[in-house]
């Protein structure tokens, strides 16, 4: 217990860094689940695919790192667009389950393809930009340059997205579709364009998340699954509260996970997350900040 208390500040700092990644992927999920009213089970896999794309461009094709990031992020966005057009748009209106089932199939197909192309073992980015040296140290808390970049990009992307959604015409259109699809349609907002656009933005964010995740923890084909689950938890925690809600939920999930790992050991790490999910869905079925939509009569 004493050891735990001593390492608590370091656990929390670590949790905030992990939480930055979770918050961003949660944002990406939130954008889709609020606009299209569906859960995207491909979020994490898209993120990891983006990271592998960046790895492929930089390590195997020999592009400079900065160039491969600027190529990989929009390419991930385009990939998301393809998924939206080919899978989600035809299925979204059919039932709640159809898009989920199709996405589940595609998810394991993507994992299989990554495994076939890059091998099943974990690979790391070559640290061409010197990211790892530590820049600050207080007691047990050690921050590398990468940690700082991670938290900074989290803050930057969150505020950019918030600005975009509340101040620009396109962003307001997106919010309008999220709020009431029929009404926004009758006001002349092109629904399908908004869908495509939100998918492109969300998938680009996912690409950035994947690259950051890969730099921090290394890449393996199955890593997307955990990211998807966490993105889902954060999106349902945030409900309709939007960008800031997702950011806070992401940080909170990161800290809870990190502290639990410190307290109870790393073996059950994913189980803590599922436990959070289980408790969450039991107590707030519509999300922490969500509106209660009466879909069913209570029986």
């Amino acid at each position, binding site marked *: 217990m004493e050891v735990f208390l001593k390492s608590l500040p370091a656990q929390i700092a670590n949790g905030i860094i992990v939480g930055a990644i979770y918050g961003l992927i949660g944002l990406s999920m939130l954008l889709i689940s609020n606009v299209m009213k*569906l*859960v995207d*089970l491909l979020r994490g896999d898209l993120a990891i695919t983006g990271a592998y794309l960046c790895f492929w461009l930089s390590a195997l094709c020999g592009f400079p790192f900065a160039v491969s990031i600027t190529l990989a992020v929009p390419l991930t966005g385009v990939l998301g667009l393809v998924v939206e057009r*080919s*899978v989600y748009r*035809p*299925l979204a209106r*059919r*039932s*709640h*389950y*159809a898009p*989920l*089932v*199709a*996405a*589940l*199939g*595609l*998810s*394991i*197909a*993507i*994992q*299989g*393809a990554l*495994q*076939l192309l890059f*091998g*099943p073992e974990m690979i790391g980015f070559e640290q061409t930009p010197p990211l790892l040296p530590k820049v600050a140290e207080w007691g047990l808390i050690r921050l590398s340059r990468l940690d700082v970049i991670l938290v900074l990009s989290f803050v930057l992307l969150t505020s950019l997205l918030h600005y975009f959604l509340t101040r620009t015409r396109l962003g307001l259109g997106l919010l309008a579709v999220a709020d009431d699809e029929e009404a926004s349609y009758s006001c002349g907002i092109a629904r399908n364009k908004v869908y495509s656009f939100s998918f492109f933005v969300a998938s680009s964010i996912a690409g950035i998340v994947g690259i950051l995740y890969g730099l921090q923890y290394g890449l393996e084909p199955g890593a997307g*699954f955990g990211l998807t*689950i966490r993105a*889902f938890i954060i999106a*349902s925690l945030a409900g309709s509260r939007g960008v800031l809600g997702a950011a806070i939920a992401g940080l909170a999930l990161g800290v809870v996970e990190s502290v639990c790992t410190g307290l109870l050991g790393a*073996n*059950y790490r*994913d*189980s803590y*997350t*599922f*436990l959070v*999910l*289980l408790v969450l*869905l*039991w107590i707030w*079925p*519509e999300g922490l900040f969500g509106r209660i939509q009466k*879909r*069913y*009569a*209570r*029986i």
Partner: protein
Amino acid sequence: MGFFIHVTVSCGLMAMLSLGLMLIVRSGVYSVASAGFYLVGAYCTALGTLKLGLSPGFALVLGAVLGAILGIFCIAPAYRVREDRLLILTLGFAESLRLVCANSRSVTNGAMGLSGIPHFSLLGVNIKPGTIAFAGFVWLIVGIICLLLIRLVKSPWGLRIDAARDDRVAATSLGIQVARPLYIVHAAGASLAAVAGSLYAHHMAFVSPAPFTVVLSVFALCALLLGGRGSVKGVILGAILIGAGLPLLQLVGTPEYSASAIRQIVFGVALAVLTIWLPGGIGGIWRGAKSDRWE
């Protein structure tokens, strides 16, 4: 011959999994927890026979009962949660069960697994795995389940499940209990998966947490949708296609990981394509129904 029996048994086990899933899906809940209940059955048999010295038949029944209890627990929030969230909940449930087995090293030997599971025997008759008798026994159970399911669909009880699925409010207003059939159906589906898992443990004589991932649940779902979720004949056909496809694809790839990768690609894409273009499955084709309406 050994390979042929292996394929026959894995088809039978896949049929059990997807028939259990068919029952659950009929109640309107898509679950991807099959792999979790499959694991419960397999570990119940492994631990029961190896550590507690139970007879294989008793361990099988124990696994089925435990599977049923966990199945009810898994579906308990069904009416509080939106359908798409429920699917993710079942996914998390199965994955947690696997993590528990992978990490309690002192009991389950962790990722190393448990080996040396004894032969299956029922009422003093020893049914050796890898023989025609074992394959026959597996398909006998599948046959019994099929008969029960066909009876169930036409029975008043089955109609009640359909009514509760199609319109919960209207069903309640007609005095049909909505919640209890859901729990019973889910418990039955989960215990079918547990029985399949138990037979799997005897068949392989070895259990480790590795094969019980979401991928397995996706294969079961794929078998169900390939055959068409409303028709028993179709589901059996789907299960045979997938159950035979998995070991046959293993012959294609040389390194172990590329075989599993190819499987994931083939069946993952198949699942997506099926849901988009052929929601009625093969059973839907021979009924001439292309939509995903129920029978």
